[in-house]
Protein backbone atom coordinates (compact mmCIF):
# COMPACT_ATOMS: atom_id res chain seq x y z
CA UNK A 1 0.00 0.00 0.00
CA UNK A 2 1.66 3.13 -1.20
CA UNK A 3 0.30 5.47 1.49
CA UNK A 4 1.32 3.19 4.37
CA UNK A 5 4.51 3.70 6.35
CA UNK A 6 7.24 1.19 5.72
CA UNK A 7 9.04 0.94 9.09
CA UNK A 8 7.68 -0.93 12.14
CA UNK A 9 7.90 2.08 14.43
CA UNK A 10 5.84 4.24 12.08
CA UNK A 11 2.90 1.87 11.67
CA UNK A 12 -0.39 2.41 13.54
CA UNK A 13 -0.49 0.42 16.79
CA UNK A 14 -1.65 -3.20 16.45
CA UNK A 15 -1.73 -2.97 12.65
CA UNK A 16 -5.03 -1.13 12.81
CA UNK A 17 -6.14 0.21 9.45
CA UNK A 18 -7.17 3.69 10.51
CA UNK A 19 -7.97 4.97 7.02
CA UNK A 20 -11.15 3.31 5.76
CA UNK A 21 -11.78 2.68 2.08
CA UNK A 22 -8.17 1.90 1.32
CA UNK A 23 -9.02 -1.20 -0.70
CA UNK A 24 -8.88 1.13 -3.71
CA UNK A 25 -5.12 1.23 -3.11
CA UNK A 26 -4.80 -2.53 -3.18
CA UNK A 27 -5.22 -4.45 -6.41
CA UNK A 28 -6.63 -7.80 -5.33
CA UNK A 29 -7.01 -9.40 -8.73
CA UNK A 30 -3.36 -10.28 -9.11
CA UNK A 31 -3.69 -13.94 -8.11
CA UNK A 32 -6.40 -14.77 -10.66
CA UNK A 33 -5.78 -18.08 -12.49
CA UNK A 34 -8.61 -17.78 -15.04
CA UNK A 35 -9.61 -14.54 -16.75
CA UNK A 36 -13.18 -13.89 -17.95
CA UNK A 37 -13.25 -12.53 -21.49
CA UNK A 38 -16.49 -11.00 -22.83
CA UNK A 39 -17.63 -11.57 -26.40
CA UNK A 40 -19.44 -8.27 -26.96
CA UNK A 41 -21.09 -9.57 -30.16
CA UNK A 42 -22.92 -12.26 -28.19
CA UNK A 43 -23.71 -10.08 -25.14
CA UNK A 44 -27.40 -9.12 -24.81
CA UNK A 45 -26.81 -6.58 -21.97
CA UNK A 46 -29.03 -8.61 -19.63
CA UNK A 47 -26.70 -7.61 -16.70
CA UNK A 48 -26.92 -10.99 -14.95
CA UNK A 49 -23.11 -11.00 -14.69
CA UNK A 50 -23.22 -7.57 -13.06
CA UNK A 51 -25.80 -8.84 -10.54
CA UNK A 52 -23.99 -12.08 -9.73
CA UNK A 53 -20.40 -10.84 -9.51
CA UNK A 54 -19.48 -11.18 -5.79
CA UNK A 55 -16.72 -8.59 -6.05
CA UNK A 56 -18.27 -5.67 -7.99
CA UNK A 57 -15.75 -6.41 -10.73
CA UNK A 58 -18.22 -6.01 -13.61
CA UNK A 59 -18.15 -2.46 -14.94
CA UNK A 60 -21.59 -1.36 -16.13
CA UNK A 61 -21.62 1.34 -18.80
CA UNK A 62 -24.44 3.79 -19.46
CA UNK A 63 -25.80 1.72 -22.35
CA UNK A 64 -25.74 -1.40 -20.11
CA UNK A 65 -22.83 -2.88 -21.94
CA UNK A 66 -20.29 -4.44 -19.55
CA UNK A 67 -16.56 -4.85 -19.07
CA UNK A 68 -14.44 -6.61 -16.47
CA UNK A 69 -12.39 -4.72 -13.87
CA UNK A 70 -9.31 -6.92 -13.93
CA UNK A 71 -7.76 -5.05 -10.97
CA UNK A 72 -10.28 -6.75 -8.68
CA UNK A 73 -11.68 -9.75 -10.60
CA UNK A 74 -10.54 -12.96 -8.83
CA UNK A 75 -11.49 -15.18 -11.76
CA UNK A 76 -14.16 -17.12 -9.89
CA UNK A 77 -16.10 -17.78 -13.09
CA UNK A 78 -19.58 -17.08 -11.71
CA UNK A 79 -20.24 -14.55 -14.51
CA UNK A 80 -19.35 -17.12 -17.17
CA UNK A 81 -21.50 -19.75 -15.49
CA UNK A 82 -24.52 -17.43 -15.18
CA UNK A 83 -24.33 -15.80 -18.63
CA UNK A 84 -27.43 -17.14 -20.47
CA UNK A 85 -25.90 -16.66 -23.94
CA UNK A 86 -22.40 -17.98 -23.10
CA UNK A 87 -20.84 -14.64 -23.96
CA UNK A 88 -18.12 -14.97 -21.29
CA UNK A 89 -15.24 -17.37 -21.70
CA UNK A 90 -12.72 -18.22 -18.94
CA UNK A 91 -9.22 -18.07 -20.37
CA UNK A 92 -6.14 -19.29 -18.56
CA UNK A 93 -3.92 -16.44 -17.35
CA UNK A 94 -0.39 -16.24 -18.68
CA UNK A 95 -1.15 -18.48 -21.61
CA UNK A 96 -1.14 -21.65 -19.52
CA UNK A 97 1.33 -24.51 -19.58
CA UNK A 98 2.65 -25.30 -23.04
Amino acid at each position, binding site marked *: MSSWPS*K*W*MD*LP*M*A*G*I*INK*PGNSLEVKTGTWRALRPVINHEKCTKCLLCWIYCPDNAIIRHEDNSVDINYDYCKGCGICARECPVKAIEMVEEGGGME
Partner: protein
Amino acid sequence: MSCEKQVRTGLTGDEAVAYAAFHADVDVIAAYPITPQTVMVERLSEFVHNGELDAEFVPVESEHSALSASVGASLAGARVFTATASQGLALMYEILYIASALRTPIVMGLANRAFSAPINIHCSHDDAYAARDAGWIQFFAETVQEAYDLVIAGFKIAEDKNVLFPLIVNLDAFILSHSIEPLYIYEGKEVVREFLPPREPVNPIDPDNPMTYGPLALQNYYMEIKKQQYEAFKSINPHIKKVLEEYSEFSGRRYDFIKKYHVDDADIIFVILGSAAGTVREAVNRLRKEGVKVGVLSLTLYRPFPANEVREVLRNANTVIVMDRSCSIGSPGAQLYLDVATTLYSLPDRPRLVNIIYGLGGRDMFPDDIKKVLEVIKDPKVTEYWLGVRG
Protein backbone atom coordinates in the same frame (compact mmCIF):
# COMPACT_ATOMS: atom_id res chain seq x y z
CA MET B 1 -0.56 7.75 53.45
CA SER B 2 -2.31 4.61 52.39
CA CYS B 3 -6.04 4.24 51.90
CA GLU B 4 -7.86 3.81 55.20
CA LYS B 5 -11.13 2.62 53.73
CA GLN B 6 -10.14 -1.04 53.92
CA VAL B 7 -11.70 -3.83 55.92
CA ARG B 8 -10.15 -7.01 57.24
CA THR B 9 -12.06 -10.07 56.10
CA GLY B 10 -11.62 -13.67 55.07
CA LEU B 11 -12.03 -14.84 51.47
CA THR B 12 -10.94 -17.65 49.21
CA GLY B 13 -8.65 -16.73 46.34
CA ASP B 14 -11.47 -17.05 43.83
CA GLU B 15 -13.74 -14.81 45.88
CA ALA B 16 -10.96 -12.28 46.34
CA VAL B 17 -10.37 -12.13 42.59
CA ALA B 18 -14.11 -11.69 42.00
CA TYR B 19 -14.20 -8.88 44.57
CA ALA B 20 -11.19 -7.27 42.92
CA ALA B 21 -12.92 -7.25 39.51
CA PHE B 22 -16.06 -5.91 41.23
CA HIS B 23 -14.09 -3.18 42.99
CA ALA B 24 -12.30 -2.35 39.73
CA ASP B 25 -15.81 -1.60 38.42
CA VAL B 26 -15.53 -3.73 35.29
CA ASP B 27 -17.91 -3.11 32.39
CA VAL B 28 -17.93 -6.56 30.82
CA ILE B 29 -17.33 -10.06 32.17
CA ALA B 30 -17.18 -12.90 29.65
CA ALA B 31 -16.15 -16.17 31.22
CA TYR B 32 -17.02 -19.84 31.27
CA PRO B 33 -16.93 -21.76 34.53
CA ILE B 34 -14.22 -24.36 35.07
CA THR B 35 -12.87 -25.84 38.30
CA PRO B 36 -11.07 -24.34 40.19
CA GLN B 37 -12.00 -20.92 38.81
CA THR B 38 -15.80 -21.36 38.89
CA VAL B 39 -16.31 -19.34 42.05
CA MET B 40 -14.88 -16.23 40.36
CA VAL B 41 -17.55 -16.40 37.68
CA GLU B 42 -20.31 -17.31 40.14
CA ARG B 43 -19.59 -14.37 42.44
CA LEU B 44 -19.33 -11.89 39.57
CA SER B 45 -22.60 -13.19 38.16
CA GLU B 46 -24.19 -12.55 41.57
CA PHE B 47 -22.76 -9.03 41.81
CA VAL B 48 -24.23 -8.21 38.40
CA HIS B 49 -27.60 -9.83 38.93
CA ASN B 50 -28.00 -8.34 42.42
CA GLY B 51 -27.56 -4.94 40.83
CA GLU B 52 -24.38 -4.20 42.81
CA LEU B 53 -22.21 -4.09 39.71
CA ASP B 54 -23.33 -2.33 36.54
CA ALA B 55 -21.69 -4.67 34.04
CA GLU B 56 -22.58 -6.84 31.10
CA PHE B 57 -22.23 -10.48 32.11
CA VAL B 58 -21.83 -12.61 28.97
CA PRO B 59 -22.59 -16.28 29.68
CA VAL B 60 -20.66 -17.73 26.76
CA GLU B 61 -20.69 -21.35 25.62
CA SER B 62 -16.92 -21.94 25.78
CA GLU B 63 -13.64 -20.36 26.77
CA HIS B 64 -12.86 -19.72 23.12
CA SER B 65 -15.96 -17.55 22.99
CA ALA B 66 -15.21 -16.04 26.40
CA LEU B 67 -11.95 -14.58 25.24
CA SER B 68 -13.34 -13.67 21.82
CA ALA B 69 -16.15 -11.71 23.46
CA SER B 70 -13.61 -10.13 25.79
CA VAL B 71 -11.50 -8.95 22.85
CA GLY B 72 -14.52 -7.40 21.14
CA ALA B 73 -15.68 -5.67 24.31
CA SER B 74 -12.20 -4.40 25.05
CA LEU B 75 -11.84 -3.01 21.53
CA ALA B 76 -15.12 -1.22 22.09
CA GLY B 77 -13.55 0.50 25.09
CA ALA B 78 -14.90 -1.56 27.99
CA ARG B 79 -12.98 -2.59 31.09
CA VAL B 80 -13.07 -6.37 30.68
CA PHE B 81 -12.48 -9.24 33.07
CA THR B 82 -12.33 -12.93 32.24
CA ALA B 83 -11.19 -15.98 34.13
CA THR B 84 -10.25 -19.55 33.41
CA ALA B 85 -8.02 -22.50 34.31
CA SER B 86 -6.10 -25.28 32.61
CA GLN B 87 -8.15 -26.82 29.78
CA GLY B 88 -10.12 -23.58 29.52
CA LEU B 89 -6.93 -21.62 28.91
CA ALA B 90 -5.98 -24.22 26.33
CA LEU B 91 -9.27 -23.62 24.54
CA MET B 92 -8.58 -19.87 24.61
CA TYR B 93 -5.16 -20.40 23.11
CA GLU B 94 -5.54 -18.87 19.65
CA ILE B 95 -7.35 -15.84 21.04
CA LEU B 96 -4.59 -15.23 23.61
CA TYR B 97 -2.27 -14.15 20.82
CA ILE B 98 -4.97 -12.05 19.16
CA ALA B 99 -5.84 -10.24 22.42
CA SER B 100 -2.23 -9.22 22.86
CA ALA B 101 -1.59 -8.33 19.23
CA LEU B 102 -4.71 -6.14 19.16
CA ARG B 103 -3.47 -4.51 22.39
CA THR B 104 -6.66 -5.19 24.37
CA PRO B 105 -6.07 -4.59 28.11
CA ILE B 106 -8.18 -7.51 29.37
CA VAL B 107 -7.45 -8.81 32.87
CA MET B 108 -7.75 -12.55 33.46
CA GLY B 109 -7.84 -14.52 36.67
CA LEU B 110 -6.09 -17.84 36.03
CA ALA B 111 -6.49 -20.53 38.70
CA ASN B 112 -3.44 -22.59 37.80
CA ARG B 113 -4.48 -26.18 37.23
CA ALA B 114 -2.68 -29.11 35.63
CA PHE B 115 -3.27 -29.98 31.99
CA SER B 116 -4.87 -33.33 31.26
CA ALA B 117 -4.15 -36.26 30.88
CA PRO B 118 -4.52 -37.76 33.42
CA ILE B 119 -7.40 -35.49 34.27
CA ASN B 120 -6.61 -33.51 37.40
CA ILE B 121 -8.09 -30.39 38.92
CA HIS B 122 -5.20 -29.40 41.20
CA CYS B 123 -2.22 -27.13 40.81
CA SER B 124 0.44 -27.15 38.14
CA HIS B 125 1.68 -24.11 36.28
CA ASP B 126 1.11 -25.67 32.85
CA ASP B 127 -1.55 -23.14 31.87
CA ALA B 128 0.48 -20.07 32.84
CA TYR B 129 3.50 -21.43 31.00
CA ALA B 130 1.38 -22.20 27.94
CA ALA B 131 0.60 -18.49 27.70
CA ARG B 132 4.19 -17.36 28.22
CA ASP B 133 4.90 -16.50 24.56
CA ALA B 134 1.51 -14.93 23.83
CA GLY B 135 2.33 -11.37 24.88
CA TRP B 136 0.31 -11.24 28.10
CA ILE B 137 1.70 -9.65 31.24
CA GLN B 138 1.70 -12.31 33.95
CA PHE B 139 1.73 -11.96 37.72
CA PHE B 140 1.91 -14.82 40.18
CA ALA B 141 0.08 -14.32 43.46
CA GLU B 142 1.56 -15.99 46.52
CA THR B 143 -1.39 -15.25 48.79
CA VAL B 144 -5.09 -14.43 48.50
CA GLN B 145 -4.24 -10.83 49.40
CA GLU B 146 -1.84 -10.65 46.47
CA ALA B 147 -4.43 -12.15 44.10
CA TYR B 148 -6.88 -9.40 45.10
CA ASP B 149 -4.33 -6.59 44.89
CA LEU B 150 -2.74 -7.71 41.63
CA VAL B 151 -6.10 -7.75 39.83
CA ILE B 152 -6.78 -4.14 40.84
CA ALA B 153 -3.25 -2.97 40.08
CA GLY B 154 -3.39 -5.14 36.96
CA PHE B 155 -6.21 -3.13 35.41
CA LYS B 156 -4.28 0.08 35.85
CA ILE B 157 -1.16 -1.48 34.35
CA ALA B 158 -2.93 -3.12 31.40
CA GLU B 159 -4.89 0.03 30.54
CA ASP B 160 -1.88 2.36 30.89
CA LYS B 161 -1.41 4.10 27.53
CA ASN B 162 2.27 3.15 27.64
CA VAL B 163 1.35 -0.51 28.13
CA LEU B 164 -1.96 -1.64 26.54
CA PHE B 165 -1.43 -5.36 26.89
CA PRO B 166 -3.68 -8.01 28.44
CA LEU B 167 -2.71 -9.31 31.85
CA ILE B 168 -3.04 -12.60 33.75
CA VAL B 169 -3.10 -12.91 37.52
CA ASN B 170 -2.08 -16.47 38.39
CA LEU B 171 -3.22 -18.11 41.58
CA ASP B 172 -2.50 -21.72 42.51
CA ALA B 173 -5.46 -24.08 42.18
CA PHE B 174 -7.15 -24.83 45.51
CA ILE B 175 -4.07 -23.82 47.54
CA LEU B 176 -5.13 -20.23 46.86
CA SER B 177 -8.33 -20.48 44.83
CA HIS B 178 -10.28 -22.37 47.52
CA SER B 179 -8.43 -21.58 50.75
CA ILE B 180 -9.87 -18.87 52.95
CA GLU B 181 -7.18 -16.46 54.04
CA PRO B 182 -7.41 -13.20 55.96
CA LEU B 183 -6.94 -10.12 53.79
CA TYR B 184 -7.77 -6.45 53.47
CA ILE B 185 -10.28 -5.39 50.85
CA TYR B 186 -11.52 -1.88 50.04
CA GLU B 187 -14.91 -0.79 51.22
CA GLY B 188 -16.20 -0.64 47.65
CA LYS B 189 -15.59 0.36 44.08
CA GLU B 190 -15.92 4.06 44.91
CA VAL B 191 -12.81 3.73 47.08
CA VAL B 192 -10.82 1.94 44.37
CA ARG B 193 -11.81 4.62 41.83
CA GLU B 194 -9.36 6.98 43.57
CA PHE B 195 -6.57 4.68 42.37
CA LEU B 196 -8.21 3.29 39.25
CA PRO B 197 -10.37 5.81 37.36
CA PRO B 198 -12.64 4.63 34.52
CA ARG B 199 -10.79 3.36 31.45
CA GLU B 200 -9.81 5.84 28.76
CA PRO B 201 -9.59 3.63 25.68
CA VAL B 202 -7.12 4.20 22.84
CA ASN B 203 -8.50 3.72 19.30
CA PRO B 204 -11.84 2.26 20.44
CA ILE B 205 -14.41 1.02 17.94
CA ASP B 206 -16.35 4.10 16.83
CA PRO B 207 -18.98 4.03 14.05
CA ASP B 208 -18.20 7.68 13.23
CA ASN B 209 -14.53 6.90 12.78
CA PRO B 210 -14.38 3.42 11.26
CA MET B 211 -11.16 1.41 11.44
CA THR B 212 -10.20 -2.17 10.65
CA TYR B 213 -8.94 -4.20 13.62
CA GLY B 214 -6.95 -7.35 13.02
CA PRO B 215 -6.54 -7.10 9.25
CA LEU B 216 -4.56 -9.47 7.05
CA ALA B 217 -0.85 -8.70 6.80
CA LEU B 218 1.25 -11.07 4.75
CA GLN B 219 4.92 -11.04 3.71
CA ASN B 220 4.79 -7.29 3.22
CA TYR B 221 3.73 -6.17 6.73
CA TYR B 222 3.41 -9.09 9.21
CA MET B 223 7.02 -8.86 10.35
CA GLU B 224 6.87 -5.10 10.99
CA ILE B 225 3.66 -5.43 13.01
CA LYS B 226 5.13 -8.29 15.11
CA LYS B 227 8.32 -6.31 15.70
CA GLN B 228 6.22 -3.39 16.91
CA GLN B 229 4.35 -5.62 19.39
CA TYR B 230 7.60 -7.29 20.53
CA GLU B 231 9.35 -3.98 21.17
CA ALA B 232 6.30 -2.50 22.88
CA PHE B 233 6.12 -5.45 25.28
CA LYS B 234 9.84 -5.17 25.99
CA SER B 235 9.49 -1.53 26.98
CA ILE B 236 6.68 -1.81 29.54
CA ASN B 237 8.56 -2.83 32.69
CA PRO B 238 9.25 0.74 33.88
CA HIS B 239 5.53 1.50 33.54
CA ILE B 240 4.58 -1.67 35.43
CA LYS B 241 7.03 -0.68 38.15
CA LYS B 242 5.55 2.80 38.38
CA VAL B 243 2.00 1.51 38.81
CA LEU B 244 3.11 -1.08 41.37
CA GLU B 245 4.77 1.74 43.33
CA GLU B 246 1.58 3.81 43.13
CA TYR B 247 -0.43 0.81 44.25
CA SER B 248 1.96 0.07 47.12
CA GLU B 249 1.39 3.65 48.27
CA PHE B 250 -2.37 3.36 47.90
CA SER B 251 -2.76 -0.02 49.56
CA GLY B 252 -0.04 0.17 52.16
CA ARG B 253 1.24 -3.20 50.91
CA ARG B 254 4.50 -3.34 49.02
CA TYR B 255 4.55 -4.76 45.49
CA ASP B 256 7.54 -5.23 43.23
CA PHE B 257 8.65 -7.55 40.41
CA ILE B 258 10.48 -9.93 42.74
CA LYS B 259 10.63 -10.87 46.41
CA LYS B 260 13.96 -11.58 48.05
CA TYR B 261 14.46 -13.62 51.20
CA HIS B 262 17.93 -14.06 52.71
CA VAL B 263 19.56 -13.80 49.31
CA ASP B 264 22.35 -11.34 50.06
CA ASP B 265 24.82 -13.79 51.63
CA ALA B 266 23.26 -16.99 50.25
CA ASP B 267 25.38 -19.71 48.66
CA ILE B 268 22.26 -21.47 47.42
CA ILE B 269 19.22 -19.61 46.10
CA PHE B 270 15.87 -21.16 45.23
CA VAL B 271 13.84 -19.52 42.46
CA ILE B 272 10.10 -20.14 42.53
CA LEU B 273 6.67 -18.92 41.42
CA GLY B 274 3.36 -18.94 43.26
CA SER B 275 2.13 -20.10 46.64
CA ALA B 276 4.95 -22.56 47.41
CA ALA B 277 7.39 -19.68 47.92
CA GLY B 278 6.25 -19.53 51.54
CA THR B 279 7.06 -23.21 52.04
CA VAL B 280 10.58 -22.65 50.75
CA ARG B 281 10.98 -19.62 53.02
CA GLU B 282 10.02 -21.75 56.01
CA ALA B 283 12.59 -24.33 54.93
CA VAL B 284 15.15 -21.52 54.66
CA ASN B 285 14.35 -20.47 58.24
CA ARG B 286 15.04 -24.01 59.45
CA LEU B 287 18.19 -24.44 57.35
CA ARG B 288 19.59 -21.09 58.44
CA LYS B 289 19.34 -22.29 62.06
CA GLU B 290 21.57 -25.16 61.01
CA GLY B 291 24.01 -22.68 59.48
CA VAL B 292 23.18 -23.40 55.82
CA LYS B 293 23.32 -20.23 53.74
CA VAL B 294 20.18 -20.50 51.61
CA GLY B 295 17.79 -17.92 50.25
CA VAL B 296 14.68 -17.60 48.11
CA LEU B 297 13.92 -15.47 45.09
CA SER B 298 10.23 -15.54 44.22
CA LEU B 299 8.82 -13.80 41.18
CA THR B 300 5.64 -11.75 41.33
CA LEU B 301 6.17 -10.67 37.71
CA TYR B 302 6.72 -13.58 35.34
CA ARG B 303 6.07 -11.83 31.99
CA PRO B 304 7.80 -9.67 30.89
CA PHE B 305 10.51 -11.72 32.61
CA PRO B 306 12.37 -9.38 35.00
CA ALA B 307 15.76 -10.56 33.77
CA ASN B 308 17.86 -7.68 35.11
CA GLU B 309 16.45 -7.99 38.62
CA VAL B 310 16.83 -11.78 38.60
CA ARG B 311 20.44 -11.60 37.36
CA GLU B 312 21.36 -9.07 40.04
CA VAL B 313 20.07 -11.34 42.80
CA LEU B 314 21.55 -14.58 41.49
CA ARG B 315 24.95 -13.42 40.23
CA ASN B 316 26.84 -14.12 43.48
CA ALA B 317 25.24 -17.46 44.35
CA ASN B 318 27.17 -20.72 44.01
CA THR B 319 24.09 -22.73 43.20
CA VAL B 320 20.71 -21.70 41.84
CA ILE B 321 17.85 -24.16 42.21
CA VAL B 322 14.95 -23.41 39.88
CA MET B 323 11.65 -24.87 41.03
CA ASP B 324 9.19 -25.61 38.22
CA ARG B 325 5.63 -26.72 38.87
CA SER B 326 5.39 -28.10 35.34
CA CYS B 327 7.61 -29.99 32.97
CA SER B 328 8.44 -29.09 29.41
CA ILE B 329 8.51 -32.44 27.69
CA GLY B 330 11.47 -32.80 25.34
CA SER B 331 13.04 -29.53 26.43
CA PRO B 332 16.53 -29.27 27.98
CA GLY B 333 14.83 -27.78 31.06
CA ALA B 334 11.45 -26.76 32.40
CA GLN B 335 10.03 -23.35 31.57
CA LEU B 336 11.22 -21.17 34.46
CA TYR B 337 14.58 -22.95 34.37
CA LEU B 338 15.06 -21.95 30.74
CA ASP B 339 14.34 -18.30 31.55
CA VAL B 340 16.77 -18.30 34.46
CA ALA B 341 19.45 -20.15 32.51
CA THR B 342 19.19 -17.68 29.64
CA THR B 343 19.28 -14.77 32.07
CA LEU B 344 22.46 -16.03 33.76
CA TYR B 345 24.30 -17.13 30.63
CA SER B 346 25.85 -13.71 30.03
CA LEU B 347 27.59 -13.76 33.43
CA PRO B 348 31.32 -14.49 33.21
CA ASP B 349 31.17 -16.63 36.37
CA ARG B 350 27.89 -18.52 36.27
CA PRO B 351 26.41 -20.35 39.25
CA ARG B 352 25.59 -24.05 39.07
CA LEU B 353 21.99 -24.53 37.93
CA VAL B 354 19.66 -27.28 39.08
CA ASN B 355 16.06 -27.78 37.95
CA ILE B 356 13.57 -29.21 40.43
CA ILE B 357 10.20 -30.44 39.19
CA TYR B 358 7.76 -30.37 42.10
CA GLY B 359 4.10 -30.35 43.06
CA LEU B 360 2.56 -31.51 39.77
CA GLY B 361 -1.19 -32.00 39.90
CA GLY B 362 -1.34 -30.48 43.38
CA ARG B 363 1.12 -32.81 45.12
CA ASP B 364 2.10 -31.22 48.41
CA MET B 365 5.58 -29.97 49.07
CA PHE B 366 6.77 -29.59 52.66
CA PRO B 367 9.75 -27.71 54.13
CA ASP B 368 11.52 -31.03 54.73
CA ASP B 369 11.32 -31.75 51.01
CA ILE B 370 13.55 -28.73 50.47
CA LYS B 371 16.11 -30.29 52.83
CA LYS B 372 15.91 -33.39 50.65
CA VAL B 373 16.81 -31.23 47.61
CA LEU B 374 19.98 -30.08 49.35
CA GLU B 375 20.92 -33.72 49.99
CA VAL B 376 20.30 -34.66 46.37
CA ILE B 377 22.39 -31.87 44.88
CA LYS B 378 25.45 -32.93 46.89
CA ASP B 379 26.02 -35.17 43.87
CA PRO B 380 27.53 -32.64 41.43
CA LYS B 381 26.21 -34.58 38.47
CA VAL B 382 22.58 -33.79 39.37
CA THR B 383 21.08 -31.17 37.07
CA GLU B 384 17.40 -32.16 37.28
CA TYR B 385 15.37 -33.83 40.00
CA TRP B 386 11.68 -34.71 40.40
CA LEU B 387 10.85 -33.93 44.00
CA GLY B 388 8.35 -36.20 45.72
CA VAL B 389 7.82 -38.62 42.86
CA ARG B 390 7.77 -42.30 43.78
CA GLY B 391 10.27 -44.57 42.11
